[in-house]
């Protein structure tokens, strides 16, 4: 476990997962400030491209990052990279702000909160995220922009590219494995 006063180790500025755990377990404000400096300008771009005005995007960024601080206990590095977790918070906030509809959500999986995190899973989730970012960067500009536009809501349903050219299948199999293990554990108990 990270955090807690004297045990704290110097954290790499780009180790988002480590920083997020310092926020979660140590309520580390400096770590939070680093996360804010990294994510806030990117979230603002994403929100503005998704149709929010600059002031609205700015407010939304504050709400999203406040949620990151207050709901930090829900961050699980075995399940998702920090960027994925932050993204889902931003997406949900954007729907609430712009659409004023209810947002149907799948039933939450009862992830086993008591057990020690499996370091291999933590590593795999971070590695997935790194690979995916690298793969996205390597795509031809046209294809990358298509994927980005799908996230901004610029594509109609039928225009959404089905072939992303990204290693999504690999991630899916890993998550699927984790789900299988969890189901097996739940059946045992």
């Amino acid at each position, binding site marked *: 476990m990270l955090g807690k006063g004297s045990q704290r180790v110097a954290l790499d500025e780009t180790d988002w997962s480590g920083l997020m755990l310092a926020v979660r377990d140590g309520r580390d*404000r400096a770590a*939070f400030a680093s996360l*804010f400096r990294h*994510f*806030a*300008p*990117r*979230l*603002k*771009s*994403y929100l*503005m491209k998704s149709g929010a005005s600059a002031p609205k995007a*700015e407010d939304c*960024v504050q709400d999203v*990052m*406040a949620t990151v*601080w*207050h709901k930090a206990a829900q961050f699980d590095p075995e*399940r*998702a990279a920090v*960027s*994925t*977790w*932050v*993204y*889902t918070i*931003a*997406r*949900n906030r954007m729907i609430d702000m712009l659409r004023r*509809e*209810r*947002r*149907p*959500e*799948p*039933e939450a*999986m009862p992830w086993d909160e008591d057990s020690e995190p499996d370091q291999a899973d933590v590593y795999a989730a971070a590695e*997935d*995220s790194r690979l*995916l*970012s690298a793969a*996205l960067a390597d795509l031809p500009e046209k294809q*990358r922009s298509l*994927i*980005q536009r799908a*996230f901004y*809501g610029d594509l109609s*349903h039928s225009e*959404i590219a*089905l072939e992303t050219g*990204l290693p*999504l*299948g690999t991630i*899916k*199999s890993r*998550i*699927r494995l984790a*789900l*299988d293990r969890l*189901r097996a554990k739940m059946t045992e108990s």
Partner: protein
Amino acid sequence: MTTLPTIRHHLNDALLMGYAAGHLSEAFGLVVATHVTMCDDCRARLESYEALGGAVIEAEDETAVSTDALARMMARLEVPVVSASPKAPRKTSLPSPVSAYVGGDLDAVKWRALGGGVRQAILPTGPKATVRLLHIPAGQAVPDHGHRGMELTLVLRGAFRDATDRFGPGDLEIADEDLAHKPVAEVGEDCICLAATDAPLRFAGFMPRLLQPLFRI
């Protein structure tokens, strides 16, 4: 909700991407969330699309936030938030995303007769698409219909067959304009489905067409 290993008809990538990106209508979103609740495979696929959303954020240009944004943020952390402790969802026979819209379990559904023993209950959502629960008695058919837009039909209980295949619990049929179909509930058990449409259905018969505005189908 236990996952159903026998599911054969799944969400397609466009729906998963649309949900992950937050751009599906509320009605379609409810069908996706319900299928994902019943299907581990599609939950895993959805989470990988959400990871793609994370990668899109990482790849974003940086738009400068106002100079006092960080200071305001840090000040805001001081203000304690009172958050309602999340209620553990009551165990219902309906998947929890559906029971949230019904406001309870199956016995809380306000059914309306649709003819031929078929009953429906339209769930309250935003206006861009409509979602309903359908109760089809064992062995009965839903009137023959086509669609102008897209129709998603998710089986919650029982099973139905149409010209394309058999659909059991957790199976999702994705029908577009080209499919005119007549779902028939299997003999033995009533079939309960969650069905969403983004345009009114087209019924083949004359009488159902007359009744259509009345029933909002």
